[in-house]
């Protein structure tokens, strides 16, 4: 079973040289720490920066340089800064090769819900609706089940949607799954996790074909 760091490390393996990548708040943010050797990617943050670097050294933090999670960051050589319309032009115009975001629920047709629990919690969609409606390559990073142990990989989302039929891949603490026309297709198991455990934790349609390899982290 993976922890949050493990999920981030596994998703980092999906990065390809030359990609522009938008990382959501939470687990996705961690991915920046595990870029594979020898490849070069650039991180875009939708509040208006491309070429985001690591957190600043103590004392160097600048209130005027933050990421979409409102955390102080740095700009790498070659970075650029722009307004929110240009930022979403990049996103909507499909200039970004990979989007990773968290979710409350993902359905086996690729629907995603991550912005609202009616009557209980409303944080807002932020840039997530633009991201999922536009990106061709969307990976969701999340725990396989919620705090009450219920599956977050569903036949149908119960919460208000963020986007329809858009998620391409899900990486959880238990597994890597692709979204296919016939549902979640199990690609890899987390270390020490059995196919049965994954089946038990998945409410949506799950396709298990042949031997399912264990992830290499």
């Amino acid at each position: 079973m993976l922890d949050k760091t493990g999920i981030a490390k596994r998703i980092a393996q999906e990065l390809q040289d030359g990609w522009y990548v938008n990382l959501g708040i939470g687990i996705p943010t961690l991915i920046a720490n595990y870029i594979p050797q020898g490849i070069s990617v650039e991180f875009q943050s939708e509040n208006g920066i491309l070429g985001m670097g690591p957190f600043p050294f103590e004392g160097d933090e600048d209130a005027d340089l933050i990421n979409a999670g409102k955390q102080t960051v740095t700009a790498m050589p070659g970075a650029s800064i722009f307004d929110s319309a240009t930022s979403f032009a990049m996103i909507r115009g499909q200039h970004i090769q990979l989007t990773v975001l968290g979710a409350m629920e993902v359905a086996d047709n690729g629907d995603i819900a991550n912005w609202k629990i009616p009557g209980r919690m409303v944080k807002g969609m932020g840039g997530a609706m633009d991201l999922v409606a536009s990106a061709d390559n969307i990976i969701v990073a999340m725990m396989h089940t919620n705090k009450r142990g219920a599956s977050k990989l569903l036949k149908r989302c119960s919460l208000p949607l963020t986007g329809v039929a858009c998620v391409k891949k899900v990486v959880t603490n238990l597994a890597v799954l692709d979204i296919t026309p016939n549902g979640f297709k199990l690609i890899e198991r987390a270390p020490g996790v059995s196919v049965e455990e994954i089946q038990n934790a998945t409410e949506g349609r799950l396709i298990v074909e042949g031997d399912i390899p264990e992830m290499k982290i």
Partner: protein
Amino acid sequence: MDKRVKNANEAIKGIKDGMTLMLGGFGLCGIPENCISALVEAGTTNLTCISNNAGVDDFGLGLLLQKRQIKKMISSYVGENDEFERQMLSGELEVDLIPQGSLAARCQAAGSGVPAFYTPAGYGTEVAEGKEVRYFNGKPHILEHALTADFAIVKAWKGDRYGNLFFKGTARNFNPLMAMAGKITIAEVEELVEPGELDPNTIHTPGIFIQHIFQGVNYEKRIEQRTVRPRT
């Protein structure tokens, strides 16, 4: 073309109860601190505020929420403000949540004389309810309309009396877009410089979009998430 006013109090004089305001900023980054303080002081009420976020409980637009000066918020993300969530869930505060990219584009459209445009964002969600859906290249899009305001209030790093603005870092965010969209736009700047000091090639907001400008005071520029790494 001298658009200078003395301070925030003078700049906001035209803002009346019940008006719609746009306020620049992302989180607490690039918010018009001086004008928000002046609005709290003026006690202007029943405001509709268009701003990506709603500040935190005790800073930014949170200050106007505390005093119940805001009737309605139009935002994309409000997760950092407990008082906001309380007022919203209790029904005291009207809230219109819209995708961040659509918010930016709707401001830009208003400032550009484009009354409406199609975007894929929000298709198939609550956001699309009641909106026209049209397919382009086989992909569904929804029609979004330009968003304007009686006043837009933006904050820049530097500006001149013509209203030309230069923003620093990610404090730019929504500010240039809202500057275009306001019927009247107020700019507060950290430093008012002489015309010609800003390189015409690097001005982010041409002065034509600005009606009032002043040099603000006592900027707090609070950091919401101070994340650092240790010096090794």
